[in-house]
């Protein structure tokens, strides 16, 4: 198996480094703007829920965080897999960059979920719930990835070792996704993801969508920034790195 040609070109580290530097501010600021709009809409404009009152507004922070936690894990695992198969340093760099961001969002999803659970279910945590447990497992997978990466000195070794862990941990993703359908659960089933017939009103939905979009853009920007740092570390021997490092930002 060979990588497609265009991917090869994009995957050339200096090219990536430059492109990323160019698109990153755009993503960052548009993401932040969308987050601001979404938060404003969610906290002020959207009507209170007839069952949950204002507590449901946590959704505007919980769902984007939970969504990104999973997406970033997928990114990390795909990056690791590509790295393992094609020995592409850029893919490893992206995986390593995604991990701390994903860890933060997983923590946020857990925290907001727990803060939501207290008023809704009367408890911060329930061990019996498959979704909660599987998200906690993902938290530990992120943590394991980062700790393993940090504790192996040789970077290429760390990339491959932690990458294997990330790939093995992928089995957890479908479990998170479908846990609410496979097992009886306290947790909400899919409400918005059924786009054809969303179960909530448009007034409540649009800030959520804006919020998710903004968070995605924001996390991409942050991941790209980190990925640039990781690429520099991995390309230490290349000439372009010296120029890039000297060009102070």
């Amino acid at each position, binding site marked *: 198996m060979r990588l497609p040609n265009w991917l090869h070109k994009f995957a050339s580290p200096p090219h990536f480094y430059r492109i990323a530097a160019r698109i990153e501010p755009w993503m960052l600021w548009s993401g932040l703007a969308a987050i601001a709009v979404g938060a404003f809409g969610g906290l002020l404009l959207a009507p209170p829920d007839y069952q949950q009152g204002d507590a449901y507004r946590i959704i505007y922070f919980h769902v984007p965080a939970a969504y990104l936690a999973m997406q970033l894990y997928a990114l990390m695992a795909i990056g690791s897999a590509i790295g393992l198969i094609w020995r592409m340093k850029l893919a490893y760099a992206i995986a390593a960059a995604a991990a701390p961001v994903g860890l933060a969002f997983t923590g946020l999803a857990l925290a907001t979920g727990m803060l939501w659970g207290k008023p809704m279910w009367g408890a911060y945590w329930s061990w019996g719930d498959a979704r909660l447990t599987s998200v906690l497992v993902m938290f*530990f997978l992120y943590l*394991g990835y980062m700790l393993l990466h940090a*504790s192996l000195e040789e970077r290429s070794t760390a990339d491959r*070792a*932690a990458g*294997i*862990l990330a790939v*093995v941990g992928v089995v957890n993703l479908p479990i998170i996704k479908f846990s609410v359908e496979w097992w009886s659960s306290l947790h909400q089933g899919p409400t918005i993801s059924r786009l054809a017939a969303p179960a909530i009103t448009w007034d409540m939905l649009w800030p959520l969508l804006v919020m998710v979009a903004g968070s995605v853009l924001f996390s991409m920007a942050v991941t790209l920034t980190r990925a640039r740092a990781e690429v520099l570390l991995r390309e230490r021997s290349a000439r372009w790195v010296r120029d890039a490092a000297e060009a102070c930002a």
Partner: protein
Amino acid sequence: MRIGLAVLRNEFLIYFKKWIHIIVNIAFFIFSTSLFSLVAGLEQELLAEWGAGVIWVVALLSMLLAMPLLFQPDREDGTLDLMLLSAVDPAWLALAKAAANWCVFGLPLVLLSPLLGASYGLEGIALLVLPATLALGTPALILLAAVAAALTAGLRRGVGLLALLVLPLALPILLFGVRATELAADGFPAGAPLMMLGAFLLAALGLLPWAAGAALRATAN
């Protein structure tokens, strides 16, 4: 393949030289499971409800106990280099080592579990289901732990990190194992979770040796 068998045989010989660890392990298993029935002083029917949980958790923990010994010594005495440089696929290597480890640390648990289950007041079909869940679940656990052990083998005191890597992934296996036994104890058919365990084991057998082998290679340097 045949080299894998040689590795397997070697492993057995070494484990039996270190028989004290095996005995300590089995003793720990019997010890800590019976601790509850001794000390907690619960009524029989309550004991029966949690017997499966206790035995499973102890199985998991005692398995973790054995894990640091899987690749660490090989790495330190240089044998791992030699094995990686033999023509055998490292996946076979990992599988052989995991198999030997299971026979020494896992199999006794499976064989002992009906006895322990009975001491917890499990009865009838549950006494068959419990060892069945262990027989399906513990190999998968060992394979998981083998991946983690391979990843952390370079780190000398990586026991803690190893546990952290294994436990999250081991959780589903544990849950299904307990679930099946509990269903059986309550007189329901336990086929579904047993099937799940079987599926886990197959997936583990198909995937994890390769992951462990890749991990061994990746951390060689």
